[in-house]
């Protein structure tokens, strides 16, 4: 039953997508009404929508940075450390 429900959600993914975008707009709108006194640690605290910007840019930069590093030198074939009997079972 639950499996069917998730299947239904996947079929309706375009509606979910729009709901998600509305939610994003909602978070920024909500930021207009948030009292900001007492949060003087950092300049970003006083900019409306700053953390949304931070999240998006942080996420994109992180993906590009990590995938870039991985592809340039971290990534090796799965059998890089391979030795003869590695796939065996003990006992």
């Amino acid at each position: 039953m639950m499996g069917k429900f998730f299947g239904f959600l996947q079929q309706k993914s375009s509606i979910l997508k729009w709901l998600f975008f509305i939610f994003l707009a909602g978070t920024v709108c909500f930021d207009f009404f948030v009292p900001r006194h007492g949060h003087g640690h950092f300049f970003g605290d006083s900019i409306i929508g700053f953390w949304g910007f931070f999240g998006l840019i942080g996420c994109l930069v992180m993906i590009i940075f990590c995938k870039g590093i991985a592809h340039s030198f971290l990534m090796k074939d799965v059998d890089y450390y391979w030795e003869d009997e590695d796939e065996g079972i003990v006992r």
Partner: protein
Amino acid sequence: MTQVSFLMHPASVFFIAAFFMPWLKKNNFMKPALVLVPVIAIFQINFLPQEFGNVNYLGLDLIFGRVDKLTYVFLNVFTLMSLIAGIYSSYVDEWEQHTAALLYAGSSLGVTLAGDYLTLFVFWELMAFSSVFLIWYRKKRRSHKAGLRYLIVHATGGLILLAGILIRHSEVGNFLFTPIAPETATFGDYLIMIGFMLNAAVPPIHAWLADAYPEASVIGAVYMCAYTTKTAVYVLARGFAGFEALVILGAVMTLYGVFYAVIENDARRILAYHIVSQVGYMVCAVGIGTAMAINGACAHAYAHILYKALLFMGVGSVLEMTGKSKLSELGGLYSRMPISLILTVIGGIAISGFPLTSGFISKSMIITAAGDDHRIFIMLMLLLASVGTFLSVGIKLPYFIWFHKEKPSVPDAKEAHLPMIGGMSIAAFFCIMMGFYPDFLYNMLPFEVTYHPYTMYHLSETLQIIGFTGLGFYLMRKKLVPEDKLNLDIDWIYRKAANPFKKFCGGPLSKLNDIAGEVYRTVGTRSAIMFAKAMSWFDWNGIDYVIDGSAKETLNLGDRVRMLTTGKIQHYIGAAVIVLFAVLIIIVLV
């Protein structure tokens, strides 16, 4: 220590159950015991006196029990976790795994309660030696080797810790485990700190974690993700609060862990790297050292143990039911394992700090503590790590296991076993409950809590970060498709770069050893044998005949001992653990 105070120690019920596990299994009482033992301990920790189990052994003052609020939080979550893991793992019929798990969980209680460094060290080593069996019981060649590497790294860390403890003893004249002020710390104290940091998986000595945990057995990983790193956080919080190095290393850890979690392919390796990230928050908070930061470290440890275990249980049940844990081989399982999906996603949103989950009320304490201490750059690093957390564990992990593909990658996959779902449900309940009722956690913390997580500002900040990270994933989801590759880490040094050294040991050095052995055999042994032959004839036919034939008996005994020595290192270490355990019992009983 009298028998009564021996039984007062919460670890003792774990040890006793571990010792009698084969007998319990024979009498069909193994599975009830896995629930009963933690339940006893959960009650027991509420009635502990402030100090108990003071033993004077060989002129050394050992303190087996020292209880205050800092100890209590960790005792509470360790025992709760052993209950959850006990229920989850009760589908496993092998008693050996349960023995190792109970020894491991019990030793972590021993570390937490230890009031002096010697007691701490004994339990510390027992943790390493019992947990390695949880890796080996995966029974794959790979896990066998990963377990050996794990053991070698932890033995090295243990030696560094011991060296530090002995140097400290020569300086201060006692073994008491008390807070060390950063201004007065000496070389020995820093060695102790390095020993602790190795177990907390602080880079560059973190690679053992991501190397070993993904190779552990399904239930082994569930236990291991909870205890080793969090006892390390506890001992750091107890001994090394306020050390600036921990602030920087902790913040680096948070990012280091998520970077690898973003690119990794194996689900359990993603979670393992993510432990590094999450423990980074706690290490950073310990380094900041203010009352709020220490509260944050404890709160985060508590919350983290539960949701990380929940995630390991969710992914573990996928591994158990499909035999696969690589994201590239999974996908589309939503129709086959929907309950596991829901429970794992609860862990995922809790770890990402969604409002009304435990992550929201714990992680924000540490970030606020960093802000209050005017460490803006550290605070931004921690926030960036929480972006990566939601990206890698909150979305990527469930998406590529349960969705991504139209058809299930493993068509005959079944929903997880009932005990597994039971364990996961309890963990999920606590993740949500603490979000609704933060005081459950806040009342346990070592310092009084004045912090309120549910402010408008904090809600807005969190919803934006999470929402727009989701947007980032949506835009880049094609780029993020996991690749069936291996990512190098620091363990490359001892797995690959050390090969010439290993070759030297295996080649020229062992040849030299052989030659020396041969010379000894031909020259030394031959003459000794001839002498012994003459003597033994006299002994056998002369003396022994007269007395009672004891030489023959000794010979028979030797045969039996020879059968015990199988040449398998697992057996030797197992025997050593049992002997250590027996010695421990004798010491505390007498």
